[in-house]
């Protein structure tokens, strides 16, 4: 990670003109990738009269927070927010409980069926919702759980638990069992040793896994679309989709849509930045060690 020395070393054999070209290309790419995010924020601040003008406004000059105020005044945002928060919280809490227990089992115990469980978990995490949602819809309809927090949450927990087990397993395995054993020699019971010694060391892992579960549940679209078909039970992604659907047939207030998008995106962007590093290394799982 010694970027400074690396840069110095690089300078010795790199030709300057190619470096200038690289910098220009990098900045253009950065502009391209950041632009949609900027455009969302910019449009969210502008009134509809300015957005529908013949030339676009590249800076939010003369803008205001009116679009946000209009969304807060409408009731649909609050009910969608309520649904999203309820479903996301349920998913995160149960997913962490279930995954943590399972991660303990596979990293602290040797038992029959352990290897096949790990293998099954790895395969299950790859199953796409798109290959199962029709059957899940039938399941929830037979359980009378369509249009309910519980119905969606159960499906989300199952979708997120496998990868969370895989992630937490690494953290649990990272805490040496010798630490616990030393505490047990000092007179703590196994359970005490676990909760006093190992558990605090796992906090970062639990936070990272919790944020992962949060992001998955908060952003999920496919399962929600199938299970939550009534408008009053929409989550935030479905609520946003409603704006897009409306735009197909009539003139849309894009300023309000972009304000709505911003409200959905901001918490996600903040949380995402917290766990980004872990997610990358978790997904590629060590192959970057080289």
């Amino acid at each position, binding site marked *: *990670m010694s970027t400074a020395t690396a*840069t110095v070393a690089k300078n010795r*054999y*790199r030709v300057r003109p190619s*470096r200038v070209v690289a*910098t220009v290309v*990098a*900045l253009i*790419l*950065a502009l391209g*990738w*950041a632009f*949609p*995010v900027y*455009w969302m924020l910019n449009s969210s601040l502008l009134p509809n009269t300015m957005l529908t003008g013949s030339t*676009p406004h590249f800076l939010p000059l003369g803008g205001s927070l009116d679009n946000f105020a209009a969304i807060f005044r409408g009731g649909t945002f609050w009910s969608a927010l309520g649904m999203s928060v309820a479903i996301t919280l349920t998913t995160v809490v149960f997913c962490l409980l279930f995954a943590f*227990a*399972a991660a303990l*089992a*596979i990293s602290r*115990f040797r038992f*029959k069926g352990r290897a096949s469980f790990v293998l099954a978990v790895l*395969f299950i995490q790859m199953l*796409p*919702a*798109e*290959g*199962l*949602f*029709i*059957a899940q819809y*039938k*399941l929830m309809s037979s359980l009378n759980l369509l249009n309910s927090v519980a119905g969606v949450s*159960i499906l989300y*927990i*199952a979708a997120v*638990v496998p990868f969370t087990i895989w992630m937490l397993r690494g953290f649990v395995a990272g805490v040496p069992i010798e630490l616990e054993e030393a505490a047990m020699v000092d007179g703590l019971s196994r359970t005490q040793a676990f909760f006093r010694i190992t558990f605090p060391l796992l906090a970062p892992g639990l936070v990272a896994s919790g944020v992962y579960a949060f992001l998955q549940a908060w952003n999920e*679209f496919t399962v929600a679309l*199938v299970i939550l078909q009534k408008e009053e039970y929409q989550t*935030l*992604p479905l609520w946003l*989709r409603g704006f*897009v*659907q409306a*735009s197909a047939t009539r003139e849309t207030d894009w300023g309000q849509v*972009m304000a*709505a998008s911003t409200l*959905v*995106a901001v918490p*996600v*962007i903040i949380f*995402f930045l917290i766990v*980004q590093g872990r997610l*990358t*290394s978790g997904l*590629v*799982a060590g*192959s970057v*060690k*080289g």
Partner: protein
Amino acid sequence: MTALTAPTGAPPKAAEQLEHRQRFSPTPYLLLVPAIAVLLLALGYPLVWQVITSMQKFGLAQQFGKPPEFVGLANYTRLFTDPQTWAVVGRSIAFCLVNAVITVVIGVGVALLMNAVGTITRLILQIAMLLAWAMPVVASMTVWIWVFDWRRGIVNWGLTQLGLDFTNHNWLEQPLSFYFVATVIVVWMSVPFVAFSVYAGLTQISEEVMEAAALDGAGPRQRFFSIILPMIRPVLMIVALLQVIWDLRVFTQIKMLQDAGAPIAETDLLGTYIYRLGVGSSDFAMASALSIFVLLLTVALSFFYVLHLMKEDS
């Protein structure tokens, strides 16, 4: 385990006792119960239902409570003799491959750039990539639909400024330009993951090796193909495989673009087609059969990824 304990020469009774104690400890199994229960309920049961339904006749009579009739693989025969299915499958595979290739190529390019530019430029590029990566899919879709909006979208305005007449051009009307827009969006969303993964691999290549190669007269192209590429090959393979798997199941992006006013039948990919069969026309037998096909395809593709994870783990 047994192979290890048997020939150690320790009193067989003690070894046996130890084994017994380990084997019959219920703790690990109890710890697994909640996770297994929720997986069985939410994925196991639907999977079984889907396999059974895909072999049943599920028509109007069944909707009114008549027990379904077992028809074996007839649904699969009907499904795969339907040219519409093949059109959807073909489009999905083409879309998936084109997107995965473009994403990986641009992703590697961005990673190389991150490695080649100064610290400030690199940070700017990384922040831009992170922002795009962090955006929720649905929020990204609303922004992109606004960017390509036929009435007041910035793309039409920009192209018109360049002297091309794109006033009121509807990008979603024609399947080809619909897929072009979808590709732009999917690539924009997917490149950051590839770029960061590959960049992490690049930082592992020692400067000494690169310097030695440069001193020995290896040009940039030679350095890339003879040193960089072989060293990042493992991460590149896995990232490319994940892209293929993810792009094959692309649903949200296509569904949202369709919602924004595209012709549905001509733009359906596997995910949206299953949705239309199942939720739209309640043809559960056909939807199940096609779902099983998607699952088999994914499992086959995932095999190598899982193998890789297992190998890294041990």
